C-alpha cells in the first residue's frame, strides 16, 4: 500500500512540475517574441510587417544606418554615448553624496529635506521642462544636446532612496571606530563606506547610464524648439522616434537592434548588482 501512495504523490509532483515548465516556456515565448520579430524585420529588404520572416534577407538596412545622412545613426549613437557617460559619472556622485549625508549624518533639517524631496516627486516632471530650457538659455548653454546632461543630473538628488536604503544597513559602530582611530567623517566615507558599497555604486552607475538612452521627451522638445540643431545632433531616442512612416520600418528595426545590443550586454554583465539593488532597494521601499 505504501508504495502506491508513494508513487501517486511522486506522480502528482511530477505532473505539477511539467505544468509549470509548460507555463514558463509559454511566458518566455511571449516575452521574447517581439525582440525576435524585431531582429527578423531588421533584415527584411521590403518591409512587410505582417509576416514574421522577411521575404528577402538583406543587410542594407544596417548599411543605410551608417551611410545615409538623413539618418546619421553613428552620430546619434556617439552623442547619446557621451551624454550617458557624463550623466552616469555626475549623477552617481550626486546620488551617493545625498544618500550618504541623509543616511549616516545627523543634522538639523534632515527629516524636513527628505519630506521635501518626497513631495517634489509627486509633481509631474516635464511641465518644468519649458522652464529648464529657459534657465539653460539664461546660462547660455541651450540648444545643444549637452544641455541634456545638466537636466538629467541636476536634480538627481531626488533618486537617493535606494542608495540610502543600502547605506542604512552598514552598522554605525564603524563610524565610531574610525572616529576613535583618528579619522574624520570624510575618511569614513571614502575609506570605509565606499569600498563596502560596491554593489550599490554599480547599480547607480548602471541606472544613470541607461536612463539617458531611454529618454526622448526632453530631447524631442529641445530638438523641436532650437533652430540650430541638425539631425546629426539628435540622440538615438529622438532619431528613432522621428522614423515614423512604416516604409522605413526595416531601418527603424536595424537602429533599434544596434541600440539594444550594447545596453543589453552591459546589463547582463552587471546583472547580479542590478538584482541586488532592486531587491535590496524595494525591501526598503
Amino acid at each position: 500500500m505504501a508504495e502506491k501512495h508513494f508513487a501517486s504523490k511522486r506522480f502528482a509532483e511530477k505532473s505539477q512540475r511539467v505544468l509549470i515548465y509548460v507555463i514558463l516556456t509559454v511566458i518566455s515565448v511571449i516575452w521574447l517574441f517581439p525582440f525576435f520579430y524585431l531582429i527578423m524585420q531588421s533584415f527584411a529588404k521590403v518591409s512587410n510587417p505582417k509576416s514574421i520572416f522577411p521575404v528577402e534577407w538583406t543587410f542594407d538596412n544596417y548599411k543605410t544606418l551608417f551611410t545615409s545622412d538623413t539618418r546619421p545613426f553613428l552620430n546619434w549613437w556617439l552623442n547619446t554615448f557621451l551624454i550617458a557617460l557624463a550623466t552616469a559619472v555626475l549623477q552617481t556622485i550626486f546620488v551617493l553624496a545625498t544618500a550618504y549625508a541623509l543616511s549616516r549624518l545627523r543634522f538639523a533639517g534632515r527629516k524636513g529635506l527628505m519630506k521635501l524631496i518626497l513631495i517634489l516627486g509627486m509633481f509631474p516632471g516635464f511641465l518644468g521642462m519649458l522652464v529648464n530650457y529657459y534657465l539653460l538659455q539664461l546660462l547660455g548653454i541651450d540648444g545643444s544636446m549637452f544641455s541634456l546632461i545638466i537636466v538629467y543630473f541636476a536634480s538627481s538628488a531626488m533618486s537617493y532612496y535606494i542608495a540610502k536604503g543600502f547605506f542604512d544597513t552598514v552598522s554605525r559602530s564603524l563610524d565610531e571606530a574610525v572616529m576613535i582611530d583618528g579619522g574624520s567623517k570624510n575618511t569614513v566615507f571614502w575609506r570605509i563606506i565606499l569600498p563596502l558599497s560596491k554593489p550599490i555604486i554599480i547599480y547607480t552607475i548602471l541606472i544613470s547610464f541607461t536612463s539617458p538612452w531611454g529618454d526622448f521627451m526632453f530631447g524631442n522638445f529641445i530638438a523641436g524648439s532650437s533652430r540650430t540643431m541638425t539631425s546629426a545632433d539628435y540622440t538615438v531616442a529622438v532619431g528613432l522616434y522621428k522614423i515614423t512612416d512604416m516604409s522605413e520600418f526595416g531601418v527603424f528595426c536595424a537602429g533599434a537592434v544596434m541600440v539594444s545590443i550594447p545596453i543589453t550586454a552591459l546589463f547582463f554583465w552587471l546583472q547580479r548588482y542590478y538584482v541586488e539593488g532592486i531587491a535590496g532597494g524595494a525591501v526598503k521601499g
Partner: protein
Amino acid sequence: MTKLQYLSLTKPERVLVDLGNFFRNFGKGILNWFKSIPLKLLKFWNHTLSVPFKTLEKAMTKGNWWVRGNFLVFGLYQIFHKEIARGILYLLYEVVFIWFFIRTGLPYLQKLGTLGTLSLTSHYMVDPSSGVADGTFATGDNSFTILLYSIVTIFLALLFVVLWYFSIRDAKSLYDNTLVGKMSNNKQFFKDLVDSKYHTLLLAVPLVGLVAFTIIPIIFMVTIGFTNYNGAERITLFDWVGFDNYSLLFSGFSNGGANVVGIFFKILAWTLLWALIATFTNYFLGMVVALLINKKGIKLKKLWRTVLIFTIAVPQFVSLMLINRMLDVNGFLTDLFVKFGWVPAKVSPFQNATLARVIIIVINTWVGVPYTMLISSGILMNIPEDLYESARIDGASSFKMYRSITLPYMLFITGPYLLSQFVGNINNFNIIYLLSHGEPSFSLDKKLGYGDPGETDLLITWIYKMSMESGSTKNYAMACVLGVLVFLVIAFFSLIFYGRTGAVKNEEDFS
C-alpha cells in the same frame, strides 16, 4: 466592541467592521488634526517663530559694535574675528545678490504686476541683410521671462534674508565664545567642513541643482496656472487671470462649447482605474511568476530569470515603439487581431476605446512583470525557511501556505513599494504616449480645444498634449492647472497610505 466579540464575527462582518473603523478613525483623525491646529500654532510661535527675533534683539543689545556691523555688512564680525573663510562666503553672497537685484531683478519685478505692457511688433529681430530672423529677441516685454526672472529674484531675496539672519546669529555666538575665552580660527572652519559639518559639503551642490532645476520650475508651473498663457509662442504678453482657469475646468464649457468638466472627470476616472489595475496586475502576476520560478523542484532557474530580465535590459522606449509599430494599422499584431475577428480589417486597434485600454494594460504587464518578478524573488529568497517548515508540520497545503505566509509577508515588505508603484503609474507617460498616443479621441460634437485628449489619455498625457504639442489647441496655463491637480490627487493617496504603512515611520528600526 471588545476584541472577543470582534473575533466571534464571521469574515464578511469583520471586513465591514474594519471598514467602519477605517472611515471613523479617518474622520476622527482629520477632526483632532484640525482641533490641534491652534495648539500647534502657539507652540510653533514661541518655539520656532519668535526665536529669530529674540536672537536679533540680543545681538543688537549685547553684541559689540562689530557684531552690530553685521546687520549691514554680512560676515563683518567673522572676518574681524579671524574666521575669514566664513566671513567672505557671507559677504560674497551679499555682493552678488545686490548686483543681480539692481541689474536684472528689480526691472522685472516692477513689471510683475502687469506682466509686461509693451507689446512686440515682431517676434525676432529681423536681420536687415538676409531678411531672416537672426534668433535674437526684439526688445519689448515678454511676460514669460518677466515671470521667470521675478520668481528667481524673489527666491534669491528670501535666501538673502535667511543668510542675513544666519550671519548675525553666527556672529553673536562667536562673540559669546570670545567672552568665555573659547577662540576659534580659520583652520577650524575647514577642519569642521570635513568632519562635523561634512553634510554641508556633501549636500551643497546637489541642493543647488535641486532648487534650480526642480523647485523653481514647480513654483513657475503653479504660478502659470493663474495666467492665460497658452504657450503658442514664447514671446507674447499674457496677464493674470486669477482662478478663472480652475473655475473653467470645474464648471464652464470651453470656448469650443465642449463640456470640459465631463472630459476632465472621465480622464481622471480612467487615470485612477488605470493606476489601480496596472499596479495590481503587475504585482500579482510578477509574484506568481516569481513563485513558479523559485519553486523547489524547478531546474534552469537562471534561464527563466534571464529571459525575463531581457525585457528590462532592452531600453523601454525601444520595445514600446516596436510594439506601437506592431499595432499599426497594418502591423503584425493588428493582422492577428483581424484573423481572430476582434477588430474589423484596415482599422487601427486603437479606434475602439475598450480594446485600446485592454491592449495597454496587457502591454504594461508585458513591460512591468519582469521588474516585479525580480523584486518578489528577491524577497521570497529571504523569507525565513522555518516559517514554511512549521506550516508544513501543521499540515498546511501549498495554497494555504501561500495565503497565510507568503502573501502577508510580501504585502508587509512591499507596502511602500506598492504605493510608489501606484504613484508611478498615475504619472506613467511612456506607455500611453508611445502606444496609443491617447487614441481614440473623444467622439464629440463640439470642438474641445484643450489639446484634444483621447479616451485612453491619462491626465499626464493630456497635460503633455496641451503644453508641448504644437497646434492651435495648445494651452500651457490649463496644463499647469492640471499638473497641480495631479499633485493633489497623488498627495491625497500618499497621505492615506503613508500614514498607515509603518515602513516610513519606523525607518530608524530598519537600519
